[in-house]
């Protein structure tokens, strides 16, 4: 009997191992299924994805826990084998009872007779037929169904997020939208600004992607539009700068036409006027003078000031013509920038139409769209500044600092919005005013380098209006700085003195 029970025990163990392996595979399959299903449904049901992931994780953990517990708690002994044999051979607890009698009491002839009967029953058992080592039919059927479902889900393409996209799976854009995209691309080809062009190009690529979700498209369009708006703002500030420059140079009779053109914001016209003004001395300009002027920081006002001098002496004349040439170059460059910005502003209109089309097609409600497009309106606890579309609202004046930490907090706090309680100051780290920082950097560095540095700066990137204001503030600051450095007698700044000295030392006698 024990031999037969041992054989059944072995088969039970094999079956259990087989079933646990199947269960493990099933768990893996569930994981793959959920992963794939999320991939397929991700666009259609973004809100449900988190719940599904959570549920899948829970099921997985529970399954693993149950499997481990079952494995740990239930060993397969001979008693279990006897019970299994009784159940399958319908022996009405014969082997189970006999096994118990075997281990506990043998004295009675009734028990001996029972053991003898049980031994005969055990010998008659065909353990291979009784307990075949195989997966149960329902496990196999379930496995087959599971594999089929897995294959189907695997082969399914990801569902498009909207019915419109389902209707047109081949293209992500409608014909009208595609036309808008083409138009923007043409404008991009003409525009010379690499930063804004890169952002626009990224947005267009996102729009053309068939698997891009509405959120991605809207974000890309918003980023592109922000870049274009920044260019527009810079153009506006440049024109304002030109106007202010015109007011400053208007006193010089030689630069009247230039001042008029600058007041109109037409840099090209101003350049032409200046070119005409500096024509006689233009041939006398030399590379050395240009280099000297470049050293002075390419300050347009200074250049115009120098260019407008009516000097008779040789060196002054040369300096004036070199400055005029530099000023013309600068004005030409500004004119090019303004042209580029004008073209990009045309692209902005197309972008706005595209953004509207994407927003209308989105499944998101208008309210949610508004929320998602909005910026964070909460003032920063560190600086007291509020990020707003198009720039940053500076609140440095509101930033205060307590001499000691209050009982309520150590960090920042805002004043009470209601009631008659005294408003508490908005607290934060003591910071140097942003405008001061920018001005210091601007004075120390090269203009080209300044722009590159500012592009990576958070403050500069977020504050287009402020940048333009600073740019305007920087021009007179540089001029006054250069004037302060220059001696009254020689009219040459200290920084340029060595260059001028070297120039004259190396001149030939005849040239002198």
């Amino acid at each position, binding site marked *: 009997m024990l031999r037969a029970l041992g054989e059944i025990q072995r088969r039970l163990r094999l079956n259990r191992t087989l079933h646990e392996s199947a269960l493990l595979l099933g768990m893996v399959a569930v994981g793959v299924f959920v992963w794939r299903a999320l991939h397929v449904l991700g666009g259609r049901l973004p809100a449900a994805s988190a719940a599904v992931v959570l549920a899948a994780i829970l099921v997985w953990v529970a399954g693993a826990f149950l499997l481990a517990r079952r494995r740990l708690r239930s060993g397969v002994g001979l008693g279990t084998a006897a019970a299994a044999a009784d159940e399958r051979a319908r022996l009405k607890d014969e082997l189970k009872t006999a096994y118990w009698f075997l281990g506990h009491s043998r004295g009675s002839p*009734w028990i001996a007779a029972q053991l003898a009967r049980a031994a005969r029953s055990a010998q008659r058992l065909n353990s291979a037929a009784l307990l075949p080592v195989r997966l149960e039919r329902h496990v196999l059927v379930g496995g087959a169904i599971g594999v089929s479902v897995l294959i189907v889900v695997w082969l399914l393409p990801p569902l498009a997020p909207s019915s419109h996209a389902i209707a047109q799976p081949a293209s992500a854009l409608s014909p009208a939208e595609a036309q808008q995209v083409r138009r923007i691309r043409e404008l991009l080809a003409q525009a010379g600004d690499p930063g804004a062009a890169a952002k626009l190009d990224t947005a267009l690529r996102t729009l053309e992607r068939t698997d891009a979700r509405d959120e991605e498209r809207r974000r890309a369009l918003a980023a592109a539009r922000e870049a274009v708006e920044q260019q527009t703002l810079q153009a506006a500030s440049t024109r304002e700068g030109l106007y202010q420059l015109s007011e400053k140079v208007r006193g010089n009779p030689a630069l009247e036409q230039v001042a008029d053109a600058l007041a109109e914001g037409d840099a090209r016209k101003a350049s032409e006027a200046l070119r005409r003004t500096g024509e006689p001395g233009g041939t006398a300009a030399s590379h050395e003078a240009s280099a000297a002027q470049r050293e002075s920081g390419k300050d347009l006002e200074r250049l115009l000031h120098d260019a407008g001098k009516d000097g008779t002496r040789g060196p002054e004349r040369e300096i004036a013509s070199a400055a005029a040439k530099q000023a013309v170059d600068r004005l030409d460059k500004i004119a090019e920038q303004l042209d580029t910005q004008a073209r990009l502003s045309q692209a902005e209109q197309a972008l706005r139409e595209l953004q509207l089309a994407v927003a209308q097609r989105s499944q998101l409600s208008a309210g949610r769209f508004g929320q998602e497009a909005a910026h964070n309106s909460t003032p920063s606890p560190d600086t007291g500044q509020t990020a707003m579309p198009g720039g940053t609202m500076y609140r440095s004046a509101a930033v205060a600092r307590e001499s000691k930490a209050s009982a309520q907090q150590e960090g920042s706090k805002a004043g009470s919005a209601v009631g008659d309680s005294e408003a508490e100051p908005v607290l934060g780290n003591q910071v140097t005013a942003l405008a001061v920082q920018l001005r210091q950097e601007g004075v120390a560095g090269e203009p080209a380098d300044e722009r590159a540095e500012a592009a990576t700066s958070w403050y500069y990137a977020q504050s287009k209006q402020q940048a333009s204001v600073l740019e305007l503030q920087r021009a007179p600051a540089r001029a006054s700085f250069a004037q302060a450095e220059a001696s009254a007698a020689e009219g040459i700044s200290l920084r340029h003195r060595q260059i001028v000295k070297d120039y004259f030392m190396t001149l030939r006698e005849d040239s002198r």
Partner: protein
Amino acid sequence: MSTATVDSQVETFRDNFRIVRDEVSRVIVGNEENIVGIMTCLLARGHVLLEGIPGIGKTKLVQTLADVLHLKFSRIQFTPDLMPGDIIGTTVVRETEVGRKFLEFQPGPIFANLVLADEINRATPKTQSALLEAMQENSVSAGGQTHPLQQPFFVLATMNPLEMEGTYLLPEAQLDRFFFKLRLGFPSAEGLSEILDRTTRQREPQVERVLGQGQILDMRETVRSVPVARPVQEYAIRLTLATHPESELATELTKRFVRFGSSPRGTQALILGGKVNALVSDRLYVASDDIRAVARDALRHRLLLNFDAEAEGIDGDAIVEDILQRIPPPSE
């Protein structure tokens, strides 16, 4: 005793049992389960309470059994004016030929092997107690003397659930004395047709006496010899404990509807009934299925249900059924 002797003993038991059952079935249509139940009680040294509507064959069943068994049979029709002395007997004054007077005990109808207590709930509690005392003690005390009852002593009481006017319901303590309470249901259409065939002809089927007193006593001894494995015994204990509302094993139904659960006599009935069932099934051990097979008959009358149970129509059978479903048999 060798294993062969045991086998032969079991075979004899099974044959005798089958013969009695077949013989009774010649007269009684259907009710095979109840015939087996009555035989189980007889062989487990218990007594049986039969409950059923009038005319369903309760008395006929008992009479047929008495005819089949070569035992002394007596029938007591319980009525409200029946006195204990009418059952157990009385002491009378007798006079010898020389004129000397002496007291002599005149045994009542209880002094028989097979006693039919018909409509036991119609007698007063005082009379019922006299019978129930004899059932428990297997002896009768009268006139300061104890008179042992002849073995086998087997009482079959019948009870009519209808016409409760003027009846005296058996208290739970007395119901507990009955090994099984069997319910006789109304026969099916086929059964009814068979009854008509057998009873409306000129000659009704006759039975033969197939089993004597000694054979029954031997069969009783055989029943007691059957071994019970501890897990099965524990299963019977768990079933009994599950009928007690304060027990950890109590089911929801038990907690809601049972005031008091089964007594230890219930557990004894489970084991002894299981032993008979095992022998009838040609087994030398008691399986959990044997316990389950007799659980309803052994426990249904031992549960004292509360008012809620009565209001919601819950009876002992429903409670026992629920317990059988919820208490798992031993796994190993």
